[in-house]
């Protein structure tokens, strides 16, 4: 209830995360893939170029990966907008397919990008979304790729990775940039569960947001000491009316 909003929102709403509140078995990674620069019709200001000669500023990450050490129970809510973006359709379908199995949807990872929404991108957008999912699954499960038949491999891959995209509508994902970054994101040397990595992941979600949105807390549940971490993003085009995975899918 401060009298004014003059103080920077970053300094007021970005809270330090207590590592004790981070859930067990999750690791994250993020990188700058140059997604917006790759699709932009006009040059995107480069933070590193405009910085002073003495201070080099790294560009904000725009691609991030969240991995669970074991396949996790998964749930989702999605926009009711008729023009559902490709990642919305793919993720929704993965959850619907998983719900038909006795164990329910089990997910290993989530790939997030900002800069390009992969929305209203037609058949190519769907192919790109599926390829993103497959690339991550391949990189995280090389043994699986080698040992299993193509049909089984493809089925398992689709169940393993969910997608989140945000940014400009109507422009294809710059797949070359994404393909180049996925081996780095999935590397065991890069994936980590520390609080700074979570904050960088939260930054990767940002578009016109002025600060990363990250919170974590712990609670007791049925004899377990549980924790939850949450990241969200959004500053404009915000009036959600989401529902569970729908059988009415569009892209």
């Amino acid at each position, binding site marked *: *209830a401060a*009298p*004014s*909003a003059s103080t920077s929102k970053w300094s007021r709403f970005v809270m330090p995360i207590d590592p004790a509140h981070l*859930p*067990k078995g*999750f690791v994250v990674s993020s990188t700058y893939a140059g997604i917006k620069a790759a699709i*932009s019709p*006009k040059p995107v200001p480069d933070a590193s170029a405009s910085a002073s000669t003495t201070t080099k500023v790294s560009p904000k990450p725009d691609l991030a990966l*969240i991995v*669970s050490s*074991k396949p*996790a*129970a*998964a*749930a989702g*809510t999605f*926009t*009711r*907008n008729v023009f559902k*973006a490709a990642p919305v359709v793919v*993720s929704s379908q993965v959850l619907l397919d998983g*719900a038909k199995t006795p164990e*329910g*949807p089990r997910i290993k990872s*989530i790939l*997030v990008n900002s800069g390009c*929404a992969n*929305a*209203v991108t037609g058949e190519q957008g769907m192919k790109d979304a599926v390829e993103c999912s497959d690339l991550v699954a391949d990189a995280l499960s090389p043994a699986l790729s080698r040992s299993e038949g193509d049909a089984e491999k493809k089925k398992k891959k689709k169940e393993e990775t969910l997608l*989140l995209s*945000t940014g400009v509508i*109507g422009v294809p994902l710059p797949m070359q940039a994404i393909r180049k970054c996925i081996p780095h994101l999935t590397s065991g040397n890069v994936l980590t569960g520390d609080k700074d990595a979570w904050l960088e992941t939260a930054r990767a979600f940002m578009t016109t947001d*002025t600060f990363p*949105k990250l*919170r974590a807390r712990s609670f*007791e*549940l*049925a*004899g*377990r*000491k*549980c924790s*939850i*971490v*949450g*990241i*969200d*993003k*959004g*500053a*404009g*085009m*915000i*009036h*959600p*009316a*989401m*529902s*569970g995975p729908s059988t009415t899918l569009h892209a």
Partner: protein
Amino acid sequence: TLLGLLATDAPVHPSALQSALEHAVSRSFNCISVDGDMSTNDTILLLANGLAPRSSSSAASGGEQVKPGDEITEASHPQSYEAFKRELTDFCKEIAHLIVRDGEGAEKFVEIKVKNAPSYETAHAIASSISTSSLVKCALHGGDANWGRILCAVGYAPLPASASGKEAWRIDPSKVTVTFTPPALASERGQDGYEAMVVLKDGTPQPVDEEKAARLLALEDICIEVDLQGGSGAAAASAREEATYWTCDLSKEYVAINGDYRS
């Protein structure tokens, strides 16, 4: 676009996870608005890997326990499911509020509570209507306790169809009361001059102390309470449901940002 990712080590089965998430989202993310526009990409994902360690205090606390390898479902662990749902809803509200605080050009964080409606959906629809009114949001940006714009947005809210098929429920204009209340933080701090201010009582405008109004609306956090007092028609006597929505003001900065965003 709203994107959200939640990850927990709680042991919850996917079906229970889905229903808990839908409940939490209906009370948090689906109750925020910055500009009234729904994105093509809005998504909230929740993962639960069940790797939470046993609690050292769990044996003494009694209650439901989850065996190793087991997961909470609505049927198997009803109390734990309800507890998880409450925890998740509260957490979702916390991070949903950050979106509103960072609304493009936003300088105010506004909580709108609609009380004594016949259903949660009705209260939600009315709160949504107020939260998306450009004129209400401009008034709040200017620190104007403009109850007329609030009342107008209440009056045109698209209400859910009556399920009973009997006499439809209606908003009764002669019962509606609008109050600007001090935000919780100001109340907790015992700050002076932030008393609740009734601007419309039973449909009748009340004298407003402009000085007090100016102080209250100068705060970053603004709370508005709309009491329908049951309305009229079907179910009026038992109309006790409420919903809360969170929105922000509308500033020139919003236009500047979105006039420059290229697709």
